[in-house]
């Protein structure tokens, strides 16, 4: 565990404490500036959870309305999609599909995270590593992956290897380039302070650069995971239909559109929840100062 810089542990008083004790914590710093008690009803409507549920409700209502119009006879209502979702949960086909889709996804994300952060940090610390690696990842990030998939299939076949590779190609450049930028943008004054206190190179990296870079590294991880999900589904749609990709193509081919949209919705929800979990892990395990502010 990285020791955090001592200046971060000193908190401003007043409003922050108020937000911690009120039943619906408001947006910390704003409350601190205004410094007056918020009405409970207003607090309820301003609460992040209320706003999130409300925005989801608006989306579902708009979906239901678009399905009832209908914007296309092939577009199911939200209700029909939920019925389709339930039938796929009840006959276990959704769970089986996730079991298959998660294999290349999990392997790809673990590889991309470990190697990606390592390469990104190395690039940030060392100019030669940057020159060597950055063109590869900038090209990989800009390349149209769907057009490259036939090439991957020729080289690696149609199995797990090819799909894992697609996940890596999608996820790794984002993780690498964010880690690189994070390390590069460490405040110089902090590094100089460390040096003036006679910190070794290792201490500067572990106690100053990495803690300062961690917010952007984690932002890169979240973006990389989102890209990895896209890669996993893309691979299943374009290489061989398995898992969630199979549910989407199969139900489309037999015109079971509610189930097709339910499969798409399920992977989106899963992806959002997964990224939310990463954020929680980041806050609770790696960044105590952010947790204190919540």
């Amino acid at each position: 565990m990285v020791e955090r810089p001592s200046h971060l542990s000193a908190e401003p008083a007043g409003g922050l404490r108020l937000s911690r004790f009120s039943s619906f914590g408001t947006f910390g710093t704003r409350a601190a500036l205004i410094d007056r008690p918020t009405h409970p009803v207003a607090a309820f409507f301003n609460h992040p959870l209320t706003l999130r549920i409300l925005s989801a409700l608006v989306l579902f209502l708009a979906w239901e309305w678009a399905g009832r119009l209908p914007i296309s006879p092939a577009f199911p209502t939200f209700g029909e999609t939920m019925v389709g979702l339930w039938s796929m949960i009840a006959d276990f086909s959704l769970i089986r599909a996730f079991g298959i889709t998660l294999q290349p996804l999990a392997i790809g994300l673990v590889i991309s995270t470990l190697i990606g952060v390592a390469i990104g940090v190395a690039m940030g610390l060392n100019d030669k590593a940057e020159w060597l690696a950055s063109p590869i990842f900038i090209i990989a990030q800009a390349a149209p992956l769907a057009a490259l998939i036939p090439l991957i299939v020729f080289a690696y076949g149609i199995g797990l290897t090819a799909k894992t590779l697609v996940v890596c190609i999608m996820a790794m450049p984002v993780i690498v380039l964010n880690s690189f930028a994070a390390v590069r943008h460490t405040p110089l004054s902090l590094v100089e302070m460390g040096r003036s206190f006679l910190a070794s190179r290792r201490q500067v990296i572990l106690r100053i650069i990495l803690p300062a870079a961690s917010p952007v590294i984690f932002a890169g991880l979240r973006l990389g995971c989102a890209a990895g999900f896209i890669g996993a589904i893309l691979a299943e749609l374009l290489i061989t239909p398995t898992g969630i990709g199979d549910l989407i193509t199969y139900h489309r081919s037999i015109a079971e559109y509610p189930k097709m949209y339910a499969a798409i919705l399920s992977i989106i929800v899963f992806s959002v929840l997964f990224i939310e979990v990463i954020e929680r892990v980041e806050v609770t395990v790696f960044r105590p100062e952010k947790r204190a502010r919540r």
Partner: protein
Amino acid sequence: MSIHMRLGRGLAAGLMAAGLTLGATIAKAQDTVRVALGDVVSTETLAFLIALERAKDRGLNYEMTSFAEEELAIQSIVGGQADIGVGTPYSVIQKTKVPLRIIFQMSTLVFYPVVANEYQSWQDLNGQPFTFHGRGSGTEAIGNIIAAREGIEFGERSYVPGSDNRVIALLNGTIKATILDLANKNILMEQADDRFHVLPTPEEKASDEVVFASQAWLDNNREQANLLVEELLKLWREMNENPAIVEEERAARNLLADQPQEILAEVTGFYTEGTEAGLFDPNGGGEAAAMLDFDFYTQAGQIEGGTSLMVEDYWDLGPLEAAKQALGG
């Protein structure tokens, strides 16, 4: 003049211009038939293209859009962005309740089960892995029907879309048994007829690709529909008499000019073998084909109801009847 009035007038003028443009587009769309193809134009769809060109000579203007997938072509008809589509719309007709109607059978499902030599008969494939194009696809339906007739059950099923991809997988030894289309069966046999052989399939063949349109378009554009189906039926009959006509017409009209010579050299061969294998029905499908399709696609799991379904809910036989009367027979 106040700023509000100016704004209002400007907006009104803009809306009018937009309305006029939209009106013009709709008017244009009605005399040009928009054709949606679920694939790029190739040897397989060349005959359809020639029939369209012949219809064009007789006054049917058309514009063709190639889609990456058949489902997208069907959706463009469902959404009203195209008039005539090519594909297999049975499940869409049944499940979305969109009034699409089939007017012509373009090709039948002529597929060849190709297996490694270690499997000598269907019985040897009992419990063995088998590869299909996709779950619920025509190739899987053929497999299911054969398995039921032979009293066998396949082992693990895997899915690799595209006959060309399955040829590569066969040659690499990744898979040992699959079903291929005519063109790819020939490619495989040319390269490795010492390793693979073709197993027998049932005689009767369901529709692979059919020509269809929305009922509303058919009602409003009867003449164009009749003209197109007449040209299709005429060419399909000529083709069955003399498959070389496709290449003759292609050369005369300079179609597929961007294709390499090797591809064009195979056109006559493809249509000769295709007509022998029954790929192109000289009757253009119709009621008998519809009943066969109901049975087949129900077994494939794409539709429900089998032969109890009503032909008129899926086919508009009007253009085909008119074409048969015009051409005789």
